[in-house]
């Protein structure tokens, strides 16, 4: 069978990268982001990128690393509030942003991966988000046409994966990863643990290997916490 497991991030990305490409990345904030593959993109130096990702990382971590090296031309995101370098580049006109409501972004990625070129949603009707987009009435209510998103490359982070590319995510680190895995012309996954053949309960596979062409064992699992909030033991 075709070997999906690659030795490292560099070899897993070999032949998939080109300047001006579109890359979709899983994660919400810094949770469930493909840290190892982002580092490999920085190292590869591929530029002029359009990045589809809910957020843009923070300074010096996550997708912030790709911003720092000026490899990103455009972001398609719902919220980019945690990144000063992003703000600087945006205000200097070096970086383009397409804002997309978070649920619409998730659905655009899902639709793209499912072969659906567009869908109608109530979200954003009557706001700047709907400007220039087709509106259609259903039962007397207005909906806006949003387009499906397809990427040249999708990169995701999973807790576990096997040689077939089957993936299992971990808790709220699942977030955008399952849809992102479906929207890439090629999808590369990094997993915290490679599990043996037959290890998965078939009912517990979140993303089947049909969507995953290549995978690696993640070597960066820092999982930086944005807001560490705790409670005290009750007396």
């Amino acid at each position, binding site marked *: 069978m075709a070997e999906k497991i690659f030795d490292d991030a560099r070899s897993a990305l070999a032949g998939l990268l080109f300047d001006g490409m579109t890359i979709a990345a899983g994660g919400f904030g810094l949770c469930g982001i493909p840290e190892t593959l982002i580092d490999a993109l920085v190292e590869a130096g591929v530029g002029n990128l359009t990045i589809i990702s809910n957020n843009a990382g923070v300074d010096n971590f996550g997708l912030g690393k790709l911003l720092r090296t000026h490899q990103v031309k455009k972001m398609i995101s719902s919220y980019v509030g945690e990144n000063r370098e992003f703000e600087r580049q945006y*205000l200097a006109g070096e970086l383009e942003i397409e804002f997309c409501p978070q649920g619409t972004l998730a659905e655009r990625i899902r639709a793209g991966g499912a072969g659906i070129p567009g869908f109608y949603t109530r979200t954003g009707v009557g706001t700047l988000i709907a400007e220039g987009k087709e509106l259609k009435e259903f039962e007397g209510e207005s909906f806006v046409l949003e387009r499906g998103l397809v990427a040249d490359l999708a990169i995701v982070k999973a807790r576990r994966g096997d040689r077939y590319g089957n993936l299992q995510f971990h808790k709220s*680190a699942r977030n955008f990863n399952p849809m992102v895995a479906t929207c890439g012309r090629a999808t590369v996954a990094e997993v915290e643990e490679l599990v043996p053949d037959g290890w998965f309960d078939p009912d517990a596979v979140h993303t089947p290997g049909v969507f995953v062409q290549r995978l690696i064992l993640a070597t960066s699992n820092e999982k930086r916490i944005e807001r560490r909030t705790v409670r005290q033991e009750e007396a």
Partner: protein
Amino acid sequence: MIGRTVRGWTREDLAARAARELRDGFYVNLGIGIPTLVSNFISPDIDVTLQSENGMIGLGPYPLEDRVDPDIINAGKETVSELTRTSYVSSADSFGMIRGGHIDVSVLGAMEVAEDGNLANWMVPGRMVKGPGGAMDLVAGVRRIIVLMDHVAKDGTPKFRKTCSLPLTGRNVVDMLITNLAVFERADRQSPFVLKELAPGVSREDVRACTEAAYGEA
């Protein structure tokens, strides 16, 4: 302006007042900031499930120090804990339950609310725009939207207005408005807001003097 001298309710009071709107069996989404505090005031007599749009249903309290897991966070990117009822879904499924009308109430903050229920809470032109996040999806899909905000801006400008001056998050989406001075509610989305309650020490005249929106008196 009167609104600057009359303090009315505190942040905790606003959260506690919003918590009284929750009913047994509700699925509820709480926004970032003061709305997050609502969870501290939910009556022990009712059972409420908190949903977070990053794909966690059944949010527990902040974890004990030795139980922090970076993969268990809420939509404010704060570490939280699981409950026995907790489940996880993808972002698409999470917003499917929001857009599909399966969440009973969302409590959100705001910059401006208009008398026709329009809401502005994501963008100030000329300032760095961080993005709408999930707010537009929430107001478009959740059955009932409760807004918590200060009655006037720091410079005394009324925030409950005839029309919003800032770019909108949604049109005709607010059902209830709780400010530090008063509670306004509307019977449905075709009806005007009605003044329902006053904060202690606040008169109807105080509220009138620092409100631009038209509203009914109960």
